[in-house]
């Protein structure tokens, strides 16, 4: 008897275990999606940053804007504003606001009133008005709004009544509505702000975010995950999923592994060379779309030796873009001949004036009388849509420049240190890029190369020309598309002549997802939106 009992014990345990593993039958998984995102958001307020990671985790999930683009991005559609009108002189924009829109609540705040004109005024006054108590909160500035000189553009925001506001502009601006439809121009809660200001913790509104969006922020564990839940009182079409989790996974291969093992359903920034692996797994699908972005190599034009335009010309000829497209982008990008990508309506096909020609480069250097040239290339340490691997790009450029006798030293820091050091502009040149926030072509020029961008430190070339600025403001004031297209072509020409930067590539926007997830539309610009994402019940394979 005794022996039998002893034999039974481990057996019984095994049975129990196998029962637990196999016999509990149907899986009961919460209805939701895990999105493998590439990093921590710096904040949950998109007004404060330009980084795509933060935009993805905030703008379209937590907030709304006054207006949105419609599905094919050709026109605007109503969001928090149901109607809008432009005065004849183009200086006054009147918005009629949506009623019965509720803000989220969290353990710090429950809204006592619905969304109204005060919230709109607060959201923009914070940016424009330097005296505003919230202007300096979170101390990061408003890089997008500074780069388009928003504070000087908008002279006044007037409240007509609770559901009507008028924006008064100082000058005509064709890109104004476009800018209001960007991911940055979100509407915050004025009531929450006032409450937190009174409590002495104003920075809370940027971290424990309250918005009107389709999801609300439930939990954020740095380096681990962000948990969003469906906003049941959403004014628009309700999100199709109850739960949205951002699984913060820095490494691209780890994201791929997670989506293969079904720990994620959607993954950010897949690498093009992973395509072979993706194809092996039937439950994965790669979505591509020509992106509105540009990767470039910006020269610090305020520092010798790159302050010499002849040197810049020479360097531009020395870079073999095709090789970079091949090695870094795995041919999922097109070579950039100018700032504007082919996906932009203002794009005109031109021959690349800076074609690869090392002999020409050598000749130009000789002409400039520069010998033993040596400088630094800063390469960003992170993956971005426009450049999946800046370090490798830098290594290739290093090899190219070695061919014309130029020595290059590659520098990289941790991303947070890198961005800080960029602001202090100690670099000689930097490999970085731009992902458009909206479809307006101005978005590729004013935020990057204008004199106001110099102030907001987004002008990585530290270069500005009054000629270009005049051209850009002229283009902004023009409403006719063909005329604007002509003006931007001229702008491209100035940039070609002055070479403040070398454009490298326009990358495709890639999104990797499980086939049981349906995503209707991937925008060529801006951040991810999960409100229309749906889980499809799949037939169980026999």
């Amino acid at each position, binding site marked *: 008897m005794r022996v039998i009992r002893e034999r039974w014990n481990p057996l019984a345990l095994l049975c129990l275990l196998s029962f637990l593993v196999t016999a509990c039958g149907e899986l009961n998984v919460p209805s939701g999606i895990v999105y493998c995102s590439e990093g921590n958001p710096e904040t949950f307020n998109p007004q404060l940053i330009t980084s795509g990671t933060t935009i993805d985790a905030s703008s379209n999930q937590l907030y709304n804007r006054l207006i949105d683009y419609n599905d094919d991005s050709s026109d605007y559609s109503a969001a928090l504003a149901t109607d809008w009108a432009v005065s004849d002189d183009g200086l006054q924009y009147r918005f009629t606001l949506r009623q019965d829109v509720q803000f989220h609540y969290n353990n710090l705040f429950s809204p006592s009133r619905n969304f109204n004109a005060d919230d709109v005024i607060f959201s923009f006054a914070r940016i424009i008005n330097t005296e505003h108590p919230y202007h300096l909160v979170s101390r990061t500035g408003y890089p997008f709004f500074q780069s388009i000189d928003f504070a000087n553009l908008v002279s006044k925001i007037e409240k007509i009544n609770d559901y009507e506001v008028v924006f008064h502009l100082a000058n005509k601006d064709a890109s104004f509505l476009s800018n209001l439809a960007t991911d940055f121009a979100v509407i915050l809660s004025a009531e929450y702000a006032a409450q937190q200001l009174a409590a002495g913790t104003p920075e809370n509104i940027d971290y424990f975010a309250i918005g009107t969006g389709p999801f609300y922020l439930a939990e954020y564990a740095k380096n681990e995950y962000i948990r969003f839940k469906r906003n049941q009182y959403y004014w628009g079409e309700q999100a199709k999923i109850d739960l949205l989790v951002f699984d913060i*996974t820095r490494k691209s291969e780890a994201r791929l592994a997670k989506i293969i093992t079904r720990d994620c359903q959607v993954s950010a920034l897949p690498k093009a060379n992973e395509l072979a692996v993706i194809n092996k797994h039937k439950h994965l699908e790669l979505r591509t779309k020509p992106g509105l972005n540009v990767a470039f190599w910006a020269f610090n034009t305020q520092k010798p030796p790159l302050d010499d335009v002849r040197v810049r010309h020479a360097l531009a000829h020395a870079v073999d873009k095709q090789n970079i497209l091949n090695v870094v982008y795995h041919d999922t990008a097109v070579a950039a001949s100018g700032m504007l990508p082919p996906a932009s309506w203002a794009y005109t096909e031109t021959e690349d004036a800076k074609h690869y020609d090392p002999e020409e480069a050598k000749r130009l250097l000789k002409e400039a009388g520069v010998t033993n040239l040596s400088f630094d290339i800063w390469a960003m340490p992170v993956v971005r849509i426009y450049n999946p691997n800046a370090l490798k790009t830098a290594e290739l450029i290093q090899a190219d420049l070695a061919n014309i006798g130029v020595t290059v030293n590659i520098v990289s820091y941790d991303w947070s240190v890198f961005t800080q050091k960029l602001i202090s502009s100690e670099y000689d040149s930097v490999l970085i890029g731009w992902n458009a926030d909206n479809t307006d072509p101005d978005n590729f020029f004013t935020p990057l190369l204008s004199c106001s961008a110099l102030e907001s430190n987004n002008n990585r070339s530290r270069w500005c020309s009054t000629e270009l600025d005049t051209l850009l403001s002229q283009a902004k004031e023009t409403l006719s598309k063909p005329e604007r297209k002509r003006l931007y072509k001229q702008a491209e020409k100035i940039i070609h002549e002055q070479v403040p930067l070398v454009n490298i590539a326009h990358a495709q926007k890639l999104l990797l997802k499980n086939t049981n997830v349906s995503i209707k539309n991937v925008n060529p610009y801006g951040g991810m939106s999960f409100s229309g994402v749906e889980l499809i019940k799949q037939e169980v394979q026999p």
Partner: protein
Amino acid sequence: MWRYLIRRLNLFIATSIVMMAVLFFATGMFPVEKGYALTGIQFPTEEQQVQTVEDYKLDKNQFSQFYAYVTQRLSGNLGISVNSQQDVAEELSAVLPASFELSLFAGCIAVFFGVPLGVLASLSSSKPVQRSILAITLTGYSIPVFWLGLTLALWFGVQLEWLPISGQINLLYEIEPVTRIMLIDTLLSESSYSMSAFKDALLHIILPAVTLAVLPFTVVIRITRQAMVTVMTQTYIRAAEARGLSTYRILIRHALPNALIPVLKAFGLMLGSFASYGIIVEVIFAWPGVGSWLINAIYQRDYTVIQAGILSVSLLIIFLSIMIELLHTTINPINRKELYAD
């Protein structure tokens, strides 16, 4: 008996003090300001600065500084994390259970499979079997754990899609932390998906636990085999055989308990390398335990977390190895002498 216990306690205290001295010495050598390395506050206010000097006696000599350091650390003041600005002690209490879960699971796998295999190996007298056991155990010793982990992840996770390879559980499950041991918490959870969450957690632990189990598994096989061979030649076994007991009974009832004593001892000696392996396994499988916490800390130069991680892990190892030694002495009749000797 008491004398023995007191001597062990003495050993524990002395070792811990030496350990803390090493850590204190290293903290002084960190390439940052000492107050910052001790508290984790990078830009202290005037008040905080005064407080730090007061707490750690930074104005006094090295000896009182050390004394202050020990009292602060033992009273649970581990400073705040440089990176997350959270209390380090709190973070530690969140990551320790996960590591515990993983190592316990791995240890169980090692014993569950290692002991029977070791016994089987001891019974066989054929050269090929002996040699192949030797080959397996030597390979187990020699295999670099990080490579093994990656290879297993590649095969069972990516190629075959059988098992998840990252984290403790699918993030869709929202599990209230009670014990912070995921396998238990999922069962305690009152949500409707408690059972599927448990299953998911179980699937998540398999690969890391198996990877981590390889080292103790080979050790267990080897030691069990050796001990069984030694035990089986002893006279009391022959006496049992002479009495006509079945081989099975002799093996399980008479030989095995005595053979397991050296296995216990081997476990104690192995703790250090087991912990090292655990750290690497946690990094590979993104297991949210002390190991990945510590490695992240070193990447981010989070000095307070580095100290806390090393301190807690080594104190645990010192404590556990002394406990194992104690257990070993109590259950091993040969050692009892030592217990009662005055």
